[in-house]
C-alpha cells in the first residue's frame, strides 16, 4: 500500500510538472499561428450539433489558412483551434473556459453549442477580458447582461418566429390573428416565446393557447387537442429537435388542421427526412439557408458553401455549421482591422464589425448580438408522391425561392 502511495504521489507530481511546463509553451500567438480556444459538445446530448459546430469551425480554418491566412502587421498568420469536449454540460464548459484561458493561454475564444453552455462560459471570458465570438447561443439574456467581450454572429432567439406572426397577419389581410403557442421551458424557447408576445402586441393579435411544455415531455396530445378545439390561425412550437419531431408526428396522427404551423429546429431534426410528407407545409425558422444570396471572398455563397461542406464532411450543412464558419470570418476580419494581437484592440475591432459573409450581414449591437441579419422562414415542400421533401425559403419575400402555401390543406385533402 505504501509503495502504491509513493508511485501515486510521484505520478501526480510528474503530471503537475508537465502541466506547468506545457502551460507556458502555449500562447495566444505562436510563431505564425493564432491560437483560438473552443469547448464544444462532442459527447452528451448536444453531440450532434456540437459536431456540426466543430465541422463549421474546421472548414473555415482550413479555408482561411489555405487562402493566405490572417494578415497582421504585414505578416501572414494561420488559425489553429484548441478543442475540448464540454460533454454537453454547462459546469464543464465553464471549467474548460478557465482551463483554456489560464492553462493553455488562449486569448481568443470561439463559442460552444447552445445558449445554455454559452451562458456558462460568457462570465469566464468576460472576467479575463477574452473576446469570444460565438455562433450558437441565441438566448436574449446573453445580450442583456452588459457583456463587453461577447459577440454573436446569429440573430437573437426572440426574432426566430415573430416573422411567422407577421406572415400570418399579412395572409389574413392585415387583420389580427389568433395564436396558439407551445414552448418548452428552457432559456432558448422561452426567449422565442417573448418574441411572439411582442409580435402579438405589435399586430394586436390574440394569444389563445400559451402552453409551456415540461422539458421531459414527449407527448403533446393535450396541447394539440386544445388546438383542435379552439382553431387558431397559427400554431407556434419551439422545443428543440424533440419538440419539432413530436409536434409533427402528433399533428399528423391527431389530424389537427391549422392554417399555419411554425417551428424552430426543423433542419436539426431532419424533419423532412424523418417524417416525409407528414411534415409538409410546416414553416421553420432558420438562421441561414443555402439559397440566400449573400456572398464573401472565402466561401463565395451559400450554394458553394453547401457543396464544399458536403465534400468535406459527407452531409449537407445545417445552419449551425454555417454560422460557426461565419464566426471565424468575423475573427479574421477583426484581427486585420485591429492590425494587432492586443485583446482589447481586437475586442474594439470586433465591436465595429460591419461585413457581409456567405452566412449573412454581420454587425453587432451594443449587447453583442447580430442585428443586421434577419431570420428566414422556410417551408417543407414535397413532390407529388412524397418521396422527396425540400426546404424552400418563403419569407422574407426578398429571398423567397418558393411561394408560401397558405392555408395548409386540411388532412382530409392530403
Amino acid at each position, binding site marked *: 500500500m505504501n509503495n502504491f502511495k509513493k508511485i501515486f504521489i510521484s505520478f501526480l507530481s510528474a503530471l503537475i510538472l508537465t502541466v506547468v511546463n506545457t502551460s507556458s509553451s502555449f500562447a495566444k500567438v505562436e510563431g505564425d499561428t493564432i491560437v483560438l480556444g473552443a469547448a464544444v459538445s462532442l459527447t452528451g446530448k448536444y453531440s450532434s450539433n456540437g459536431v456540426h459546430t466543430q465541422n463549421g469551425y474546421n472548414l473555415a480554418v482550413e479555408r482561411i489558412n489555405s487562402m493566405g491566412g490572417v494578415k497582421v502587421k504585414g505578416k501572414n498568420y494561420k488559425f489553429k483551434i484548441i478543442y475540448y469536449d464540454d460533454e454537453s454540460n454547462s459546469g464543464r464548459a465553464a471549467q474548460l473556459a478557465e482551463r483554456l484561458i489560464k492553462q493553455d493561454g488562449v486569448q481568443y475564444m470561439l463559442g460552444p453549442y447552445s445558449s445554455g453552455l454559452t451562458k456558462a462560459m460568457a462570465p469566464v471570458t468576460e472576467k479575463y477580458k477574452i473576446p469570444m465570438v460565438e455562433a450558437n447561443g441565441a438566448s436574449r439574456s446573453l445580450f442583456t447582461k452588459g457583456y463587453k467581450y461577447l459577440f454573436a454572429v446569429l440573430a437573437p432567439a426572440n426574432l426566430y418566429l415573430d416573422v411567422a406572426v407577421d406572415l400570418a397577419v399579412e395572409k389574413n389581410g392585415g387583420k389580427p390573428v389568433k395564436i396558439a403557442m407551445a414552448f418548452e421551458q428552457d432559456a432558448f424557447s422561452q426567449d422565442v416565446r417573448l418574441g411572439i408576445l411582442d409580435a402579438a402586441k405589435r399586430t394586436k393579435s390574440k394569444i389563445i393557447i400559451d402552453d409551456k411544455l415540461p422539458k421531459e415531455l414527449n407527448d403533446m396530445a393535450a396541447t394539440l*387537442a*386544445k388546438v383542435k378545439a379552439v382553431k387558431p390561425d397559427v400554431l407556434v412550437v419551439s422545443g428543440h429537435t424533440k419538440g419539432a419531431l413530436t409536434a409533427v*408526428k402528433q399533428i399528423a396522427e391527431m389530424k389537427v388542421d391549422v392554417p399555419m404551423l411554425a417551428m424552430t429546429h426543423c433542419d436539426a431534426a431532419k424533419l423532412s427526412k424523418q417524417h416525409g410528407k407528414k411534415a409538409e407545409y410546416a414553416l421553420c425558422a432558420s438562421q441561414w439557408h443555402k439559397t440566400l444570396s449573400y456572398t464573401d471572398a472565402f466561401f463565395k455563397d451559400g450554394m458553394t458553401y453547401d457543396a464544399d461542406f458536403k465534400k468535406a464532411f459527407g452531409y449537407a450543412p445545417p445552419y449551425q455549421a454555417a454560422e460557426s464558419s461565419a464566426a471565424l470570418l468575423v475573427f479574421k476580419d477583426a484581427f486585420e482591422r485591429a492590425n494587432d494581437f492586443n485583446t482589447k484592440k481586437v475586442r474594439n475591432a470586433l465591436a465595429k464589425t460591419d461585413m457581409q459573409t456567405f452566412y449573412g450581414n454581420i454587425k453587432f449591437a451594443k449587447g453583442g448580438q447580430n442585428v443586421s441579419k434577419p431570420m428566414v422562414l422556410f417551408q417543407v415542400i414535397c413532390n407529388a408522391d412524397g418521396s422527396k421533401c425540400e426546404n424552400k425559403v418563403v419569407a422574407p419575400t426578398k429571398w423567397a425561392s418558393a411561394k408560401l402555401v397558405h392555408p395548409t390543406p386540411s388532412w382530409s385533402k392530403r
Partner: protein
Amino acid sequence: MDFLIFQAPMLMVQATMDGLVIGIIFALVAYGMALQWGVMNIINIAQGELVIMGGYIAYFLYVAGIHPAFGVLLSPIIMFFVGVGIYKLVINKVVDRDLFISILATFGISILAQQLMNFAFGADVVVADSGFGTLMMFDNSVVLPMSKLFSASVCIISAIILVAYMKRSKLGRAIRATAQNARAAKILGVDTEKVYAATFGINAALCGIAGACVAMTFTLHPYTGLPYTIRSFMIVIIAGLGNLPAVAVSGMGLGVFEEWSDYLLGTEFRIAAVFSLLVIILVWRRFKLARKREYLK
C-alpha cells in the same frame, strides 16, 4: 378562470383516453420494476435506459425496412439477454447489500448506458413511424392514434401473459418463493442465483416491450430514459410491491390525472401536479401507518 375542458366537453373524453393509454405503457415498465424490486430488493435507476434501449431495437427494425411493430417481439428477446448480462456483471454483486449501494450501482449503469447509446446510436432524436393511422370518434372530435392503441393492447397482453406465467410455471413459482423468503427458498432447493438473473432478465424484457411501444408512439433519444424511471418508481410507490392490479390501476390513474391537470392547471403544471399527488399520497400513507402502530407502544 374559464376552463377549456368544460367548454368543450369532448376534451374530457380525449384527456381520459390519452391518459389511460399512456398510463398503460408506464404501468408495464412499473410492473417490471415492482417485480425485481420485490424479488431482489433493488431499485433500478437504469429502468428508463432499458426502455430506451428496447426502443432503439424497434427503431433499427424500422430503419432496416421491417415494420417497427415486430419490435415488440424481437426487443424483449434481446433485452432479456441484456438484462441477464447486466445482472451477471453488476447486479449480482449488490443484491444482498444495502439499498443505497444498489441505487448507486444502477445509477452508474444508467449513466454508462446513456453514454454508450449516445455513442452507438447518435444524439439525434428519432421516431419509428408505425403508419397505423388514426381512430376518429364522436364526429372527429376525439382522436386516438392507432399506434397508441396498439401499444396499450400489447402492454395489456404482455402483462396478462406474465401474470399467467408467474402463476403457472416452475420459474414463476420459484420467483414468487424467492420474493417471499429467499433463504427459505434456497433451503428448499431453489437456485436463487438463477431466479435473480431470470427476474432481472424478465424486467429488462418488459422494458423492451414498452420501449418498442415508445418508439412507435413517442420519440427516442439516448438521454430521455429518466422520466420512465421516475414514473415507474412513482407508480410502484403508490401501488406497493407485488400487487399487479394495483400497479395497473395506479399507472392508468396517474396517466389520467396528468392529462386532466394539463387541461385544468396548464401544461407547465402537469408534472408538478403528479409529484404533488405523490407527496400527498406518501404523507397520507405515513399517517395511516402511524395510526396502525399506535397500539404497539
